[in-house]
């Protein structure tokens, strides 16, 4: 009798313990998932937008539009930005009056190996873009850019028309407001947006 009650109590306790463990695990999973969602949809620092194309730059302003995308070569989110850029620049009809640059960050002290990898490999397969490796991040500083994925569009007078990201979240490929706005500007229309959030790694943290 006594043994039976002890066994029942122990059984109850172990069931209660198991429930607590399962609950704790569920809370952990939810927290993890929540922080992942928060991280992937939380924009990073946007550029301190330069209103005008810098007077001193190794990039040259086009007589039409000039599009510049800044990328961290080791940031996994950069691949999504390159993919969006590829889609945007794929149609020569769209890019006839556009000059596009992809500027790959190379902070002071980093070797050539730092810039090599999937991002540069995918960039060389994008049509109609000139790729520049930005030694000491000189160009990103000139343009006030702080985050990988930051995209700037300038008109022929050097006025900044658009500043923002071209992905909907970190590493997410698919329809997004940035690409839509750029397409509107490039096709000669007036973009509905001149700013979108940027999802990418900090260019400053790589220093």
């Amino acid at each position, binding site marked *: 009798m006594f043994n039976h009650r002890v066994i029942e109590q122990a059984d109850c306790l172990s069931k209660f313990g198991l429930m607590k463990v399962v609950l704790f695990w569920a809370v952990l999973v939810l927290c993890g998932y929540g922080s992942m969602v928060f991280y992937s949809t939380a924009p990073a620092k946007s550029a301190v937008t330069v209103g005008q194309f810098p007077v001193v730059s190794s990039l040259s302003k086009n007589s039409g539009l000039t599009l510049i995308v800044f990328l961290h070569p080791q940031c996994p989110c950069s691949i999504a930005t390159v993919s969006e850029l590829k889609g945007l620049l794929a149609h020569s009809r769209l890019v006839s009056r556009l000059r596009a640059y992809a500027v790959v960050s190379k902070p002071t002290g980093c070797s050539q190996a730092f810039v090599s990898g999937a991002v540069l490999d995918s960039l060389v397969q994008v049509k*109609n873009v000139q790729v520049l490796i930005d030694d000491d991040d000189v160009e990103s500083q000139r343009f006030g850019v702080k985050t990988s994925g930051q995209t700037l569009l300038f008109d022929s007078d050097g006025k900044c028309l658009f500043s923002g990201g071209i992905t909907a979240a970190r590493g997410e490929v698919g329809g997004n407001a940035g690409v839509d706005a750029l397409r509107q500007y490039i096709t000669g229309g007036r973009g509905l947006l001149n700013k979108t959030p940027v999802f990418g790694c900090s260019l400053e943290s790589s220093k």
Partner: protein
Amino acid sequence: MKIEKIFLVDDDPNIRRIAEISLKKLGPWQVELASSGRELLAMLEKDKPDLLILDVMMPEMDGPTTFQSVKNQFPGFKQPVIFMTAKVMSHEVDEYLVLGAAGVICKPFNPKDLADDVRRICAEWESRLSCEDAAAESSELLVGSGD
């Protein structure tokens, strides 16, 4: 012509890197790099490429001087040579072609187009060579028949 191996000379390490990735990925070709004309001459002592790509503006020994040195030191080297330069005014391009270059690639280049540009220049160079060969043969025949 079949390209398997390319020697590329440029003093800018970033341009070397981008061009190397582009040619390797989109050729796909084997690419060996040199940062100066002198380094290229040392490389040519050991191995010969199917194509040479030379930057024009380089310290110490520029592209045309390097090309001349290659012709002097390796008279048997008859592979095409392409210049890469931002100086692409028509008279400048003519100068490179007179030197014997197969063609010119304009800097800054789009990496995606680099391999296609190389193919196009090599095809043009090959057809130019075969035209010259045919012209030489026919003039030899004319001289022979005149005798």
